[in-house]
């Protein structure tokens, strides 16, 4: 049952927004019924309403978060990655974001994304699968154990960070969907909401943003769907409530605010390789030996450090992932 907390002192705008939310929840339930989805019991949908800085904006957030996401302060189990480099600060990670749906200015994305409605949220798993699903984010939290993953993030712009993500392997969700034998690739799509994402009202890229992985890449244990960071749910500017994180590939592969996973037998179009095919390939593996035409990929700036450090093959995950590309010419399949 939905438990409603005492509301004697609820200000009118919060009250009104709660009514709007109830209407939205009803619509969601209707959509689920239409989708014929049997995986989503609608219990445990209790939410609270968190007021943001602006009294006119009320942001809805899930209430029953799993322990790994339920910290009130930024929390990580360690303070460095396995190579001994310190984690980037929460403030750095949440104020330096490439998310063109909101702004091309990395330091403006946090502000532009503040009013984005990342809850409630649904993810559709479709295409060449025996068990297509529409999962509510609350169900994702419940069904898939959320665990911490300390990963390096290397942007194709030659800067990098160390980030304590919280999430779960994509393989878990794919296994539940049961890919058919002809499945070869997974296509990922970001939500399309031009009314909330001003960048989508411009023609700088073809919207919605799309990305793709080969099935064996998607099934790799290092490839995760992240739901949080530093023990808290993802902020909007990071791609709330759920995003891809593939640590051995350049950051633009790690698509944000995902609504669709489509299993396909043909190689999916990806946004950046469509925009500039000679600059961005499908694979986009971090590779210091293959130069981008405009940025050296042999070195990188770690945010928070001075000077440069050498970029590592597959971003330092060579031992774990190199076998995926055995026999491939990585200068051609870039």
């Amino acid at each position, binding site marked *: 049952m939905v438990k409603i907390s005492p509301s004697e002192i609820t200000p009118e705008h919060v009250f009104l927004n709660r009514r709007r939310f109830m209407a939205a929840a009803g619509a969601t339930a209707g959509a689920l019924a239409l989708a014929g989805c049997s995986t989503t019991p609608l219990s445990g949908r209790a939410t609270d309403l968190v007021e943001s800085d602006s009294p006119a904006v009320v942001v809805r957030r899930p209430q029953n978060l799993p322990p790994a996401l339920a910290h009130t302060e930024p929390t990580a189990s360690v303070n460095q990655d396995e190579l001994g480099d310190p984690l980037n600060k929460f*403030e*750095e990670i949440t*104020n*330096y974001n490439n998310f*063109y749906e909101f702004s*091309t200015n*990395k*330091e403006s994305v946090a502000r532009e994304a503040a009013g984005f409605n990342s809850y409630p949220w649904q993810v559709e798993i479709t295409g060449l699968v025996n068990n297509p699903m529409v999962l509510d984010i609350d169900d994702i939290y419940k069904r898939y154990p959320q665990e911490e993953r300390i990963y390096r993030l290397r942007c194709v712009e030659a*800067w990098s960070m160390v980030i304590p993500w919280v999430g779960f392997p994509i393989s878990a969700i794919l296994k539940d969907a049961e890919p058919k034998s002809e499945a070869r690739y997974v296509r990922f799509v970001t939500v399309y909401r031009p009314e909330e994402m001003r960048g989508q009202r411009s023609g*700088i*890229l073809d919207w919605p943003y799309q990305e793709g992985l080969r099935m064996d890449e998607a099934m790799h244990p290092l490839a995760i769907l992240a739901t949080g960071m530093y023990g808290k749910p993802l902020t909007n500017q990071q791609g709330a409530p759920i995003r891809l994180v593939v640590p051995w590939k350049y950051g633009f592969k790690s698509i944000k605010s995902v609504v669709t996973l489509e299993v396909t037998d043909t190689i999916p179009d990806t946004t950046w390789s469509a*925009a*500039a095919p000679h*600059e961005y390939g499908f694979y986009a593996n971090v590779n210091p030996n293959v*130069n981008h035409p*405009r*940025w*050296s990929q*042999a*070195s990188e*700036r770690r*945010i928070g450090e*001075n*000077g*440069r450090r050498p970029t590592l093959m597959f971003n330092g995950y060579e031992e774990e992932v190199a076998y995926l590309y055995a026999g491939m010419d990585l200068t051609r399949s870039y």
Partner: protein
Amino acid sequence: MATYVRNNWFWWVVTLTALAPMGWLAWRALTNSLGVDPVNTVNNVSGRAAMIVLFFSLACTPLNTIFGFRRALTVRRSLGLIAFAYASLHLLNFVGLDYGFDWNLIVQDAVLDKPYILAGSLALLLLALLAITSTRGWMRRLGRNWKRLHRLVYAAGVLVVLHFLWQAKAAERWEPLMYGGVLAALLLVRVPAVRNWLVRQRGARSARVSRPRAAQAD
């Protein structure tokens, strides 16, 4: 004093305005508020300021020849020097804060490998040459060659736009292209035929504007 103000207020206003981004950067550096990525902030502010101030210095001559705004000539040199100062800060940020003075890495990884770095480096060399020879002494020594030498500023302008364009992502090319359009206009109005046509147009217009006034006087 009053005479000094009357003669120099324009120079002071323009010079201080052109230096404002420098002050803004200094303020942010002193208050430790250059953002998550200070290298990127200094790079973006100094680069754009260098280009915009350079283009304003390129606007001085046509403002005089076409619009008869003689005061513009008084700020041309100081704008050119300020553009060079921003470009120098841009370079210092690149070699110092970004590459940590690792010259081997800078040459191998950047200058020889990235066309946009090469274009930017050449532009800065030209601006340095023009800054050094901007004094009265060098004007005297070079005589009529001074003017020929300082036409290299057009090449510097083109290299600056190429530097900006070649590093821009596909999605962000509109900005360097916009500045390229501004530069094209600034160069176009220097073509004698275009300049003379514009001067004639202006003459005709001011004649039209002055006619009713004359009629009123009747």
